[in-house]
């Protein structure tokens, strides 16, 4: 039997990375993710793996870019305002088709903000702050156990699609300890020998670059990337449904906010109200199709986030029914309290559910 132990989200991510063969890590301190780098500093040095306390996040992500060209599993971690510094290179990595796993343990913004909990980087992660037409796969865990599983999945998807992947973690989850198991990595290793740079031995030389002075070729390149993104959008959307089958009211939430949403859902179910929770696990590709199907039975879709409504626009894009879409949120600080959310929901649904 595999034992469960009390694990902090940040440490769980670091251990899962090591466990699935991540051989290169680059970072720069910023709360609330610093423990990832602290933990890996010793573990990677002991194993003679690549670890650099970079001079800045710009340095770190560019080291990751270089390391990724070797075909190995590469990770960087940071937080919010410092992930902002890495955007240029994420765009390069997407264009270069280089697999990098970037963990963003979110803090509150804008600007320096503070280390308070927030889910303010949904837009930064899913839309991206780099230039040009590119996409980053974004995974969102809601428990420490899922931090482990989605770390494995991040490395797998990054190499499978040769694309950067962001593991978008609530600051709360990075810092929170709960029982979890370091499971085995369920994904196969991907062969990178057809594209990696390791010296032109017994093969023609290769080069990886994003510059393309020929406009036809640049067009073709972006179109090729978009074929890949289309494939990702078809194959990879992932989500969790909680009591959605007969739901007339669907709460949408990501990350740890979905845990509160489930507790609230239970509360309303006890009163005979058909409520469910829809939690996107892949924020890109967003599970539009499934949300759309579910929404045709729902009178209300209520999106709950610890920000001012960033996922809300994806919810709106997904829902094509006449369901009323509402938003409950708060940008920063103590997580929305159960009672606050319950009252806000009652306010929204009072016309149809007068008895509440």
């Amino acid at each position: 039997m595999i034992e469960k132990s009390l694990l902090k989200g940040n440490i769980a991510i670091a251990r899962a990375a090591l466990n699935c063969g991540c051989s290169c890590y680059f970072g720069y301190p910023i709360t609330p993710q610093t423990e990832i780098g602290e933990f890996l500093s010793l573990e990677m040095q002991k194993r003679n793996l690549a670890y650099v306390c970079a001079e800045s996040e710009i340095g770190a992500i560019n080291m990751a870019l270089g390391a990724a060209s070797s075909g190995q599993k590469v990770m960087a971690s940071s937080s919010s305002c410092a992930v902002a510094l890495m955007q240029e290179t994420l765009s390069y990595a997407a264009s270069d088709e280089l697999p990098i796993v970037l963990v963003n343990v979110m803090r509150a913004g804008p600007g320096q903000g503070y280390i308070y909990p927030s889910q303010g980087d949904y837009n930064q992660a899913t839309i991206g702050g780099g230039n040009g037409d590119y996409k980053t796969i974004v995974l969102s865990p809601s428990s420490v156990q899922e931090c482990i599983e989605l770390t494995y999945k991040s490395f797998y998807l990054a190499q499978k699609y040769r694309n950067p992947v962001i593991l978008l973690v609530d600051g709360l989850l990075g810092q929170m300890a709960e029982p979890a198991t370091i499971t085995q990595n369920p994904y196969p290793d991907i062969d990178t020998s057809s594209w990696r740079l390791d010296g032109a031995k017994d093969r023609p030389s290769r080069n990886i670059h994003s510059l393309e002075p020929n406009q036809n070729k640049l067009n073709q390149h972006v179109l090729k990337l978009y074929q890949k993104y289309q494939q990702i959008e078809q194959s990879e959307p992932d989500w969790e449904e909680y009591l959605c089958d007969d739901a007339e009211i669907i709460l949408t939430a990501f990350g740890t906010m979905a845990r509160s949403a489930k507790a609230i859902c239970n509360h309303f179910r006890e009163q005979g109200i058909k409520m469910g929770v829809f939690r996107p696990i892949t924020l890109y590709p967003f599970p539009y199709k499934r949300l759309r199907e579910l929404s045709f039975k729902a009178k209300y879709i209520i999106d709950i986030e610890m920000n001012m409504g960033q996922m809300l626009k994806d919810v709106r894009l997904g829902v094509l029914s006449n369901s009323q879409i509402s938003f409950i949120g708060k940008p920063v600080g103590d997580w929305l309290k159960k009672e606050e959310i319950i009252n806000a929901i009652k306010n929204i649904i009072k016309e149809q559910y007068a008895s509440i």
Partner: protein
Amino acid sequence: MQVYSIPNSIKKDSKFTFCKGCDHGVAIKIIAEIIDELNLRENTVAISSSGCSVLLYDFLDIDCLEAPHGRACAVATGVKRAHRAKGEEKFVFTYQGDGDFASIGLGESMHSALRGENITAICINNTNYGMTGGQMGPTSIMGQLTTTSPLGRNKEYHGFPIKTAEQIALCEGTKFSARVALYDVKNILKAKKTIKKAFECQLKNKGFSFVEILSSCPTNWKLSAQDSHKKIAEELTKIYPLDIFKDTIDD
């Protein structure tokens, strides 16, 4: 008898796309020759950068990775360390402009030197941002007319240029730092010998090695190829002396 031949590490179908009289071509050719002589082709990953140096991979028949503007030394660090994590030593060098290495990328460059990263950086100093049309850069000299210093670089208004090779020599992790030029055959041969030494520094696993190449930019200097070389020989080498500023390879 010496017969002119194209080095093995130069792509056979490559066309010279630099401006007429530009020293980039000579610099790349001698690098290719050294790669051949040291038999490095099959074990090298080169890092190109943003600037006139970006198309390195169009000329060199070796594995190349392009870095974002200024980040070549960080990218090279990642490449070097990643292969080392697999127990393999790759030969890794960057090819950067002066703006790339010493302005936007000074942080990455200097920290790679400070860490003693076992890579080699080659910096083409043409005293301006060449690719974007000749603006004032970190190495533009006092009085230099550029598109953004139309009245000439002035210490009160613009501040001072950087002597890159001297500065990099000050870093403890730097084992070799030199400045060379390509304005005549004697200097080209000397440059080749110097770059070879920098490469050997890495092959001996000693730490950071750096060569700054004073290089002509006839287009933005608005001079002929000959006058550009004359300017380097008579003017630039007075400000940027050709020398080896640090060689502790055998210490």
